[in-house]
């Protein structure tokens, strides 16, 4: 067993201590959004109580403190993903905005009719639709890496999919619907060998494993704060400095300029060139606090414990009759998607809820994955390091309740 003191950790997450319909809440919807520790909640509240002011502007004391806290959070993100410089970290609303930014400011100016954008079959809609919109605008082609029945990428034809027309490869590190961990480092290496830039969607990876952009050598790495114990509405884009320097701005406005006249505007330096308008200051500070929290628990430690949870849940749930696990790769983060024979996932979700077990049911914003398996939706339990083996047992009990009711 891991060395984590789960009961002590749970005390940091006040929301977990409540009853739903008389049952203790088992929050197993972490892949949708994670809960926030008091350390994050307090960091946000303290900022508004003590330091609130606009950043990068005023000479007054509060503005200095707000700026220091905001830029301090950027340094924490830089350290968290092992970037080389704070200039490589752009604060955004989340992974979705980061992908749209790269699509607009990096890919669009160099994309022509007949060019290709390479994604995979198991992407979240956020890593499909921005590229599709771009392809439609210029007449480029969206090319899709196929997947297998186990829910792994089928890389048998991968080399052929990387062509001289491929302008970017954008793939998820961990599938939100299946939990599969993709071999993105190897894929990046192969893409780079053909001169193709790479974006990695780390939204589902950052809560579960160390993110190291030096090791991955990707050109862009994106993630959302809210899936890693930070507030909603904040996330980060990492981009290699030399690439970000060359890119056109994303949105225009205040803070992203050096000087403005009606004849010409000079853009600000990195990363501010990409941060128009007053940013989500409290969100960034909350994200910094979440990183501190994860590092205090230990990312390797939490990953090891989550793996134990997943193994236990897979054995318990997989042992039940009349149930099929969707996504059976050996390389998985703590996501367990499943179908109960003869019962629609939506009914599963309602019956679970009545027993205090919160899961996600639906297509998980990954409809192509659902189409691949020929199903409309799945029930998905997803774990964080504050979950317990007892909560896995509650999940199993809830499944048995569904089967009883639908017998």
């Amino acid at each position, binding site marked *: 067993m891991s060395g984590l003191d789960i009961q002590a950790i749970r005390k940091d997450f006040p929301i977990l201590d409540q009853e739903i*319909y*008389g*049952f203790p809440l088992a929050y197993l919807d972490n892949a949708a959004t994670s809960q926030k520790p008091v350390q994050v909640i307090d960091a946000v509240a303290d900022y508004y109580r003590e330091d609130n002011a606009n950043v990068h502007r005023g000479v007054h004391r509060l503005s200095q403190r707000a700026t220091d806290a905001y830029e301090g959070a950027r340094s924490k993100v830089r350290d968290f993903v092992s970037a080389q410089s704070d200039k490589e970290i752009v604060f955004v609303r989340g992974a979705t905005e980061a992908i749209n930014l790269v699509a607009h400011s990096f890919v669009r100016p160099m994309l022509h009719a007949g060019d290709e954008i390479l994604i995979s079959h198991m992407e979240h809609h956020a890593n499909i639709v921005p590229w599709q919109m771009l392809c439609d605008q210029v007449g480029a082609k969206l090319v899709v890496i196929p997947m297998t029945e186990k829910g792994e990428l089928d890389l048998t034809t991968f080399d052929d999919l990387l062509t001289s027309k491929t302008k970017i490869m954008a793939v998820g590190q961990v599938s939100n619907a299946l939990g599969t961990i993709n071999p993105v480092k190897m894929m990046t290496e192969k893409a780079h060998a053909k001169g193709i830039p790479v974006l990695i969607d780390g939204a589902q990876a950052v809560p579960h494993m160390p993110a190291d952009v030096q090791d991955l050598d990707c050109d862009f790495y994106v993630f959302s704060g809210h899936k890693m114990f930070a507030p909603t509405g904040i996330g980060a884009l990492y981009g290699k400095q030399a690439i970000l320097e060359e890119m056109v701005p994303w949105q225009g406005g205040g803070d992203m300029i050096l000087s403005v006249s009606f004849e010409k505007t000079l853009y600000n330096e990195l990363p501010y060139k990409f941060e128009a308008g007053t940013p989500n200051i409290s969100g960034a500070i909350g994200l910094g606090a979440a990183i501190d929290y994860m590092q205090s628990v230990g990312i390797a430690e939490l990953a090891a414990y989550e793996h134990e949870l997943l193994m236990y849940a897979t054995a318990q749930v997989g042992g039940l009759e009349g149930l099929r696990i969707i996504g059976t790769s050996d390389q998985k983060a703590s996501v367990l998607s499943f179908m109960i024979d003869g*019962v*629609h*996932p*939506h*009914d599963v979700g*309602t*019956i679970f809820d*009545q*027993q205090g077990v919160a899961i996600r*049911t*639906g*297509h998980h914003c990954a*409809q192509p994955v*659902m189409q691949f398996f020929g199903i*409309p*939706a799945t029930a998905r339990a997803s774990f964080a390091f504050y979950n317990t083996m007892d909560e896995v047992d509650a999940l199993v009990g809830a499944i048995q309740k569904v089967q009883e*009711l*639908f017998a």
Partner: protein
Amino acid sequence: MSGADLRDLYQQVIMDHNKKPRNFRDMADANHLAHGNNPLCGDTLVVYVKLNGDVIEDVSFQGSGCAISVASASLMTEALKGKTVAEADAIYQQMHEQMTGGEVDMATLGKLEVLGGVREFPARVKCATLSWHTMHSAMESDADGQVTTE
């Protein structure tokens, strides 16, 4: 407590219609049809209607969805078959009232009363109403499923 609540939602009649949906079939000679889908949960269905003058001579559906959605569609086809357009409209209105917590006329609702439990589960109301909205569009469309502007 929770068991009783769930039984209000998943009543025997609903479970039966989910397992053995009535009028669950294609209809080659339908003169009205419409496609319905709930993008949130992925439920999709087609409702077929054969109108003979003012009377719903036949009504059927196909598709996939949760127990509430399938049972509601199945019960709907049973309730509407043989009714006039005006009667069907009155039943549609009563279903709407039942789902939104308004005053309902049990005589008009009949067996559809079993769907009343859905009201206590706001996240599921759309499951119960999808087939009804689709039927409503079908009545205003032609056999190709094109909703007419009239």
